[in-house]
Every structure is written in C-alpha cells, then in structure tokens.
C-alpha cells in the first residue's frame, strides 16, 4: 500500500484514502481547534465548522470507487460547498474547489502535479475572498502549496514527501500567524482555521504513509500548538455581527454581481460557486436584508444565521415542548424560550413558558429547533424569547417559516427573558403583552460572570486565562481574581442607587462558599439592594445576575 503510493502517484483511491484520513485526524483534534477563540468567553466553533465541512466533502467520496483522482476531487469539491459552515469552512470548500479544477481530467497525479494542484487550491481560496488577510487559513494554504512545490522539485520527490512538506509548511505558517495579525497577538493564540488546515494535511499524510520518518518527526513535533483562534478575515473593530450562510440555486448566477451587492451589507464576504449554485457567507448586522437580496437571484438553501464565535448544537427539550399541552390560555398566545441551565428551565416553566429549547450560551439552537418547538404548541400565536444575542437572528428567521403568527421579543440574556415573561398576562392580547414584555426586558441589566478561557486583550482590558471576567449586557467590562470582586465592580459601574433588586442565578460551577462570599459582598457593599438567590444551573457562567 505504501509503495503503491510512491510508484503510481495520487489516483482516485489514494486521494479518497487521504481524505478519509484527514477527516479522522481532524475529528480527533477538532476540539483543540474549538477550544478557544479571540473573544475569551467559553465558546468556539472553528474546529466543528471545519469538521462538518470536511464531513460533507467526504460524504459522497465514501460511496465512490472512482479510479480517477479528478472524480474524487470533484465530489469533495461539491460536497464541501454544500456543507460549508463558518468562515474557515467556506474557505476550505474553495481550497477543494481549486484543487478539483487543477486536477480536472486527470487519473493520477505525479508529485509535481500534486504540488501544483495544492498551489492552485490556495490561489482559488485567495480569489474567493473579498479582502484576503494574511495570518489566516489563506496564508497557511499558500505556504503549504509553496513547501509542496519546493519538495516536488527535488530529485527524489515522492507523494508522501510532497504531502509531508505541505503539512510542515502549514505548521510553520500557523506558528507565524500571531506575528501577522494583531488580534491573534493580543489574544495570544494562533489562527484556528489555519490550524485546522494543518490538521487536514497531517491527516492526509498519516493515511498515505504511516511509516514515513518525516511523518514520525512531524507527529512528535505536533504538541498541542498554542490555543487556536477563529479570526474573521476583515473583522471590523467592535462588531461580530451575524454569520449568515446559504446557497443560492439558480441559473446564470453572477458571483461577481452578487458579491458586490452583499459586500454593501456586511463584511467577511465570500461569494463562491458555479452559475447554478452559489455559496454565500457574510457577517452582517442585518441578515434579513441579505436573505431578501439573495432570494431575488434564486432558491435559497441551507440557510443558517448564527454567531461566528459560538457553537451550534441544539437540544430540544422534549418535556418542555410537550405536544400534549392544552390550549388553555385565554388570549390564545403561547410562549417559547431558549434557556440554558436546569434551574433556569424550571424558572421559565414556572412562569408559564410552554416550550423550552435548551441552549443558548455555547449551544445556539437552530431556526429549525425553534420552529419545531413552536409547531408543537396548541397555540396559533406564539411569543419567542431567544434569551441570547446570538440566537436572535435565527429566532427571527422562524417568523417567515410557519403559518403561525410568531413574535420575537429580542431578549439578549436570560434575566431579560425572565423580566419579559413576568410581564406576560394570559388574559391580555398579544400586542399588549409584547409591548409590556419588551419594555420590561429593556429595564433589566444583566451581569454575567465567567472565566477567561485564555489570555487576551479586549475592550482595553488585559485578561489572563482563568481570570474571572464580568460582562455587563454582553460587553466584557471587568477582570479580576474572584467572583465577588468582579461583581462588586460591575454593580458599582451600573450605579446601585438606581436599582432595587439583584437576582443571583447560580451556575452549576459555583460552590456554596463562592455563593456565600458573593452574597455577603453585595449585601455589605450595597446595603440598599435586595438580594435574591436562585439556582440557575447554567454551564460556563458561575453567576448570572439580573439587576433591576
């Protein structure tokens, strides 16, 4: 098997094996890619997005026995485009596309042809991106291609050596990314997408030449690299926006024209594909406008709107979404909420929410999850509470997808959600309830307390991994040694004289002693505030406080 690769170059079966190898290696290591991102709150998704993209690329390849490398490459290209998720996933799909173009019509690749295809793959990726940024997966792809070309020009070039060189080139490039991007340097991380690509090349190498000494050396060296980070390609200061992705199916689609229009609505724009199928990726503050615009070109498929820095996994709370519920409410209005934490679920249920979708903080439910919950209710009119800034866009998508009348109260946090639900009156019509709920949600201030998942600088703060950080209304404001200190600062910033009640939602990580200390800190420092403690049970955030 090993010698076959050397003798015949890269044919269909070998490329298939390489792809499967890269999939298993990325699958084994994607959490390392996920672990951290530039924003130091506990969530992340680059590894998962790349893995899902690669899975989609390999899906059809698995079924194919094609002898020609060109056929396998084409399947991978198509599959990755259909399944691309996130910025890095989209670029990965373009790398596959460039590779497939370069090997078109070929049965097998010589080492030199392989290197040339890798270089062309990188070029295709550069072309697909509106404003290429160095220090990202693009740079890593290019350096991998260059290293492959150098290795291929040598007298004893073999396929495994070319791939080994590409992987080594990728690794060197990954390690250099912090010197190219300020945001990585500040955060003290390497680029996550680039690291993901490195893993893919390493996985290919493992599968084509297990015994090669070059690989052994490489594996040895590949200690967990410094934390990886997802970096948006041309991320503006301050804004992350909503990551909006979809496919347009149509005819004579003009990618240039579409890209030009999408660019005016957001950044990190990627518009790639064929005249019949175009993949769009954009970070925008107004996903609806993007979707409306794109809808004019053809049929939209695989629409997803989410936050680029969060993980997209959902669990539908089956108990909460009980289809057995009876429509007993006088106003005929149901309520659905996205909630994280067992205690929080109980609180929302107790307040009269009919269906709960678990998730929010690190698991953003999809539009589909929310739709399912809404459809399960015996009410034709439903109020939906996303309870997380990253869920709002997906929640708004639901409105157009069901015959039911859906109203989204744009709650950015669970405390906002609680306040909104408290204002709900079962005998009052929806319009009045919405007005009251929105007003109440805006009244409450949210303090979230968690640990920085790694060193970073953000909002003028220097944060070290493990530091307690405090966010006020989703904005990182304070870092410190313990919860009580950070909460003290946050309350002081809000101005405790303007408020009356602090509700402390205790997360699952918080100990009794930590809770006692936090409570006594608030009571001692701010005697004018009433303190109420609730078991929130949320993950990742030891304390969430509502101040009103």
């Amino acid at each position, binding site marked *: 098997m090993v010698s076959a690769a050397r003798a015949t170059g890269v044919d269909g079966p070998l490329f298939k094996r390489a792809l499967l190898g890269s999939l298993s290696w990325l699958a084994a290591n994607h959490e390392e890619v996920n672990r951290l991102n530039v924003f130091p709150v506990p969530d992340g998704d680059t590894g998962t997005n790349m893995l899902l993209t690669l899975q989609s690329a390999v899906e059809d390849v698995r079924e194919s026995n094609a002898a020609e490398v060109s056929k396998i490459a084409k399947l991978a290209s198509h599959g990755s485009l259909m399944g691309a998720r996130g910025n890095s996933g989209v670029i990965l799909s373009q790398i596959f596309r460039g590779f497939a173009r370069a090997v078109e019509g070929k049965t097998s690749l010589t080492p030199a042809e392989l290197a040339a295809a890798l270089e062309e793959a990188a070029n295709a990726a550069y072309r697909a991106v509106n404003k290429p940024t160095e220090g990202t997966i693009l740079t890593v792809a290019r350096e991998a291609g260059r290293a492959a070309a150098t290795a291929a020009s040598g007298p004893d070039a073999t396929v495994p050596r070319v791939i080994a060189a590409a992987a080594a080139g990728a690794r060197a490039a990954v390690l250099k990314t912090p010197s190219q991007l300020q945001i990585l340097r500040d955060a003290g991380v390497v680029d996550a997408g680039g690291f993901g690509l490195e893993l893919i090349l390493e996985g290919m190498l493992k599968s084509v030449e297990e015994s090669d000494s070059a690989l052994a050396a490489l594996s040895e060296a590949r200690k967990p690299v410094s934390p990886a980070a997802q970096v948006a390609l041309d991320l503006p200061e301050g804004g992350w926006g909503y990551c909006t992705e979809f496919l347009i199916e149509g005819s004579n689609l003009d990618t240039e024209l579409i890209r030009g229009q999408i660019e005016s609505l957001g950044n990190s724009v990627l518009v790639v594909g064929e005249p019949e199928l175009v993949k769009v990726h954009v970070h925008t503050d107004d996903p609806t406008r993007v979707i409306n615009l794109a809808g004019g070109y053809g049929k939209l498929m695989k629409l997803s709107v989410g936050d680029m820095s969060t993980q997209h996994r959902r669990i539908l709370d089956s108990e909460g979404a009980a289809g057995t519920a009876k429509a007993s409410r006088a106003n005929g209005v149901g309520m659905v909420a996205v909630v994280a934490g067992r*205690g929080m679920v*109980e*609180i929302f*249920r*107790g*307040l*009269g929410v009919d269906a709960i979708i678990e998730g929010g903080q690190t698991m953003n439910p999809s539009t589909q999850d929310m739709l399912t919950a809404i459809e399960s209710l015996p009410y034709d009119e439903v109020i939906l509470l996303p309870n997380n800034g990253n869920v709002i866009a997906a929640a708004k998508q639901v409105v157009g997808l069901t015959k039911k009348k859906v109203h989204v109260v744009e709650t950015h946090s669970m405390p906002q959600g*609680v*306040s909104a639900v*408290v204002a709900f*009156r*079962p005998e009052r019509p929806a319009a009045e309830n919405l007005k009251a709920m929105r007003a109440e949600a805006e009244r409450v201030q949210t303090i979230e307390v968690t640990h920085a998942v790694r060193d970073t600088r953000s909002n003028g703060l220097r944060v070290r991994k493990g530091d307690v950080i405090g966010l006020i209304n989703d904005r990182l404001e304070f870092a410190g040694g313990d919860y009580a200190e950070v909460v003290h600062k946050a309350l002081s910033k809000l101005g405790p004289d303007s408020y*009356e*009640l602090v*509700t402390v939602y205790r997360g699952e990580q918080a100990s009794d002693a930590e809770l006692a200390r936090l409570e006594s800190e608030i009571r001692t420092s701010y005697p004018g505030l*009433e303190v*109420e403690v*609730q*078991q929130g049970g949320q993950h990742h955030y030891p304390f969430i406080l509502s101040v*009103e």
Partner: protein
Amino acid sequence: MTRTFAVVTDSTADLPREWQGRYGIEVVPLKVLFGKETFRDGVDMTNEQFFRRLAAATSLPTTSAPSPGEFAEVYRRLAKDHDGCISIHLGAQLSATVEAARVGAQAVEGFRVNVIDSQTVSMPVAFLCRVAAEAESLEAATAAVEQRVPKTRVLALLDTLRYLEMGGRLSRAQALIGTMLDLKPLLLVADAEIKPVDRVRTRSRAIPRMIEYFKGDLPVEHMAVMHAQAADEAEQIATALRKDLADGEVTVGQIGSVLGTHTGPKALGIVYIKA
C-alpha cells in the same frame, strides 16, 4: 341612639376605632394563635405588637373565626335594646366567620339578624357597615349593603406570597406565580374570588401598577389605602391618589393581626367600593 337596629362586623373589617362609637358598630374579634397562645384580634394585642411577634416567630401563627357561640352571645346582648341586626362579615371564600355568624344568629330566637357575606375583607367591610349604620331601617340597610357587595374591591400588593400560601388562601399557581422567583403578586379580591392582576419583580414597580389599576376603576364611592407596617408607602400612595378623587378624602388604615397573618408584613392595599 335613634337607630333601632344594630350593626355588627368582625375584626377583619379594619374598622377605624372611632367609628365604633361614632356609628355604633359592634366588632367581634377573630383570633390569632401563636402556638398554644390565643389572642383576640385587635383586643389583646396591638397591630405593632403583632407584627413584631410575627417577624420573630419561628413558625407562622394561625387564625380562627369566632365561634357561633361567640356570635350568639353578641346577638343576645344586642337583642335587649335593638329590634334587629345587620351582621356584615369577611367573605366566605376567605373565612368561616360568616358561617359562624349565621349559625350563631339561628341560636338567638326572636331576634332578626341579617347576615351579609361581604365577599371582601378589610375596610370595604367597614364602609359597608357605615352605609348600614346611616340607613333608616334594617331593610334599607340590608338593601344598601347588598347592592354594594358586588362593587367591593381589594387591590393588594403583597411583599411575598409566602403568608397567603401558608395560610392556604391561595396557591402559587392561582397567583400565576408557579416559580421559585420571589415575585410581588398584585391581587384583586372581587366577586367572591382572589384573582391575580399582575406579577411584578420589584416593589417600586408594583406600586405604580396598583395605582394605575385603581385609576382604571374610578369613580369610587369609598376608598382607603391599607398597609401592614408600611405606613410611609401607604402615605405616598394616598398623596398620589388625592388629586384624582372628587372629595380628596383618602383614609390610610392599618391591616389587623388576622388579616396580617395572611398578607405578611409590608403588604399594601387600595381598597374601595366602586360608585
């Protein structure tokens, strides 16, 4: 006294003390039980003493209605110099008092007692008593009171639902508060029921809601602001309401011990009879 019929109520009417003499109204006390100690509401203990003791109590006190015998005793005494009696009591949905009065009345032969279920509690009952006391005959008094019973309202803001819940008067679900959260329930006693009006997270937000709701019920014939150890807030509410009332008269009164056992401290109420 020219009036030939007597007017009787119970201690939960929160009847201002001076009305007893001025209008000749008889008050039968309910009882508060701290463990084995029994106190007659408004007789053996002042409201201040009661709430101090309530705050310190390790277990909540219980309350009990007067016995039929106690009512019979009062009616028998009144029968000596009256030719009839109207006996107005707190709502049957809240207490057995009105039943005890009926049974007690039957025990006194030859004396007519019109027992009225006011369907309400606190000062609206006192207002009904005043209306009765000012009537020319027992028939007229009874008609005037019965006509006003459906118009009585008690709008109550509780600082916590704990006391009402412990007393078995209202479940969290009935109060629309099926949650662990310490919400401030705004309740309405009307039409022989306790209904939730609103639930609010903080007291300072709840008070304007209560005022707003009350204003929606204007005009009123009689009204008062009641409180349990929350005199300052009650005064603020009264001040806020005076300009909205034709005669500008707002009585501020204290909730008695028996009612206080169920509302808990810091309860506030706007109580009234709709015009």
